[in-house]
């Protein structure tokens, strides 16, 4: 039974990170916007939903909707001034924006739900949706189903956009501004829309995460999280959604399986932990070496 619960936990996390990968893939893989501050949307979504549910006592679904809107809005705000930047400049600027968001929630401790809360104290006791009517032992299964539902929704919406004319314009913008401009495409508008859509879905992921952990604080949103999501979409194969999901699973597996491997190695914990991180690093490198375009190549749209 325990193994099953662990598996369910894994899958819940995989779904949450899956939504993150899909949304990043939409921005970065399809739209070519190398967003290195994706964790900012994750963070804003998490806090928005938390505060709405805990302070305004709205329903979980309204909280998630709020997360969706707030993260989208933030994406809109940062993409307006930065939309003219070139890819690498953009990457570092977004990395900075992500850190600023984290610093904001770290330093502004008035954003809280009571005593000893907010800032680095974090916020505790975030309610789980429908917890009162679902028995504890099947709750994880229920939450798994819930996250799967949101993952499916994200997949459906993004996939439809990617496969249609919208995605085609994005792929053109990814490489060069002038050509789409000459064909009458408002590239800035497309960029902003892409950021907003991707950001909004990442916000959902944030909401889903914290309503499960029932706790949130700024240390959930260090830059490393963005890097991990990047590794997920690269390993799976950037530019296509199936790849992003497979990559999510693989990186998650890397992180977990190395935990189990070590149970069978008679090495000192200190060294072991180093070795575990080394092997995660090396595995990412190896996957990139042998599968340069990821496990699943970007699908050519055939007609």
């Amino acid at each position: 039974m325990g193994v099953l619960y662990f598996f369910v936990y894994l899958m819940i996390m995989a779904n949450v990170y899956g939504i993150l990968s899909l949304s990043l893939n939409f921005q970065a893989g399809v739209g070519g916007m190398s967003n290195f501050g994706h964790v900012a949307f994750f963070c804003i979504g998490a806090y928005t939903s938390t505060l709405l549910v805990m302070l305004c006592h709205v329903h979980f679904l309204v909280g998630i909707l709020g997360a969706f809107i707030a993260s989208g809005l933030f994406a809109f705000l940062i993409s307006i001034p930065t939309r003219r930047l070139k890819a690498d400049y953009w990457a570092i600027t977004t990395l900075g924006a992500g850190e600023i968001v984290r610093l904001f929630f770290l330093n502004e401790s008035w954003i809280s739900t009571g005593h000893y809360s907010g800032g680095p104290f974090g916020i505790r006791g975030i309610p789980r949706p429908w917890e009162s009517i679902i028995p504890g032992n099947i709750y994880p299964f229920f939450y798994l189903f819930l996250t799967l539902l949101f993952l499916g929704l994200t997949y459906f919406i993004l996939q439809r956009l990617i496969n249609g004319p919208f995605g085609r314009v994005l792929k053109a913008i990814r490489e060069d501004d002038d050509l789409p401009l000459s064909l009458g495409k408002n590239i800035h508008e497309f960029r902003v829309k892409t950021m907003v859509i991707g950001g909004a879905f990442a916000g959902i992921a944030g909401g889903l995460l914290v309503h499960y952990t029932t706790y949130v604080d700024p240390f959930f949103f260090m830059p490393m999280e963005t890097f991990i999501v990047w590794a997920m979409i690269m390993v799976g194969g950037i530019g296509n959604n199936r790849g992003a999901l497979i990559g999510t699973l693989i990186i998650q597996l890397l992180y977990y399986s190395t935990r189990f491997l070590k149970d069978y190695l008679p090495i000192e914990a200190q060294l072991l932990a180093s070795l575990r991180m080394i092997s995660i690093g090396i595995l990412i490198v190896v996957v990139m070496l042998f599968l340069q375009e990821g496990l699943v190549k970007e699908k050519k749209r055939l007609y």
Partner: protein
Amino acid sequence: MLVVEDVHKSFGAIKALDGVSLSVEQGTIAGLIGPNGSGKTTLFNIISGFYEKDAGNIRLNGKSIDGLDPFRIARMGLVRTFQVAKAPAKLTILENLLLAAKNQMGEKVLDNFLKPREIFRKEKENLNKALDIAEIIKLKRFKNEYAGNLSGGQKKLLSLGRVLMANPDIFLLDEPTAGVNPVLTLELVDVIVDIRKNLNKTFLIIEHDMNVIWHLCDLVNVLVAGSNLTKGRPEEIQKDERVLEAYLSGSKST
């Protein structure tokens, strides 16, 4: 249809355009020739909104298009090609062509979910058109090939294919046949003539291949060192001493 009046542009100390004027009538094919570096491409960049001009006036269908973004000008019915062919490497030939179609509902986010059926129908229509164009530019065989893998001449052909697909009111073509093999060039010349005749479209073409210019153009503008040298029908231009000296004959004029 397109009127350019006294346009100036300099890059630092270099005067690329020094008072250029020209006009293109609806339904005609105008040529733009001149020695290398005479400012032809710069003029295209200014008309299509990619560069800002220093002075002058440009009107499209009587409306001023000063300071508009390139994409707005394109939406007003003026589409240009680039001298150095652009071919998004990770889009297939067909995707490249489909990209160019105008007024695509599917580019609106919400319509994708509100009107999926209409979008599907429109896509199908565009697809058929794209296949026809691929046939014309001899790329049908490569329709699912990435544009980045095309040969130099094919990239040029693809550029032409895209404007055909975009089907604007006025085409600005920057050396459309440079690098295209001569046999195919002749076919393309016929295609352009057909479009003009059947659809009453307007063209402004830069070309160094005089065969194309003589065959196609109703009116040829000659640019030298950023200003108009002369303009006239091909027969006249062919005989114009000044043009011969500055552009056509092989003396050390540049």
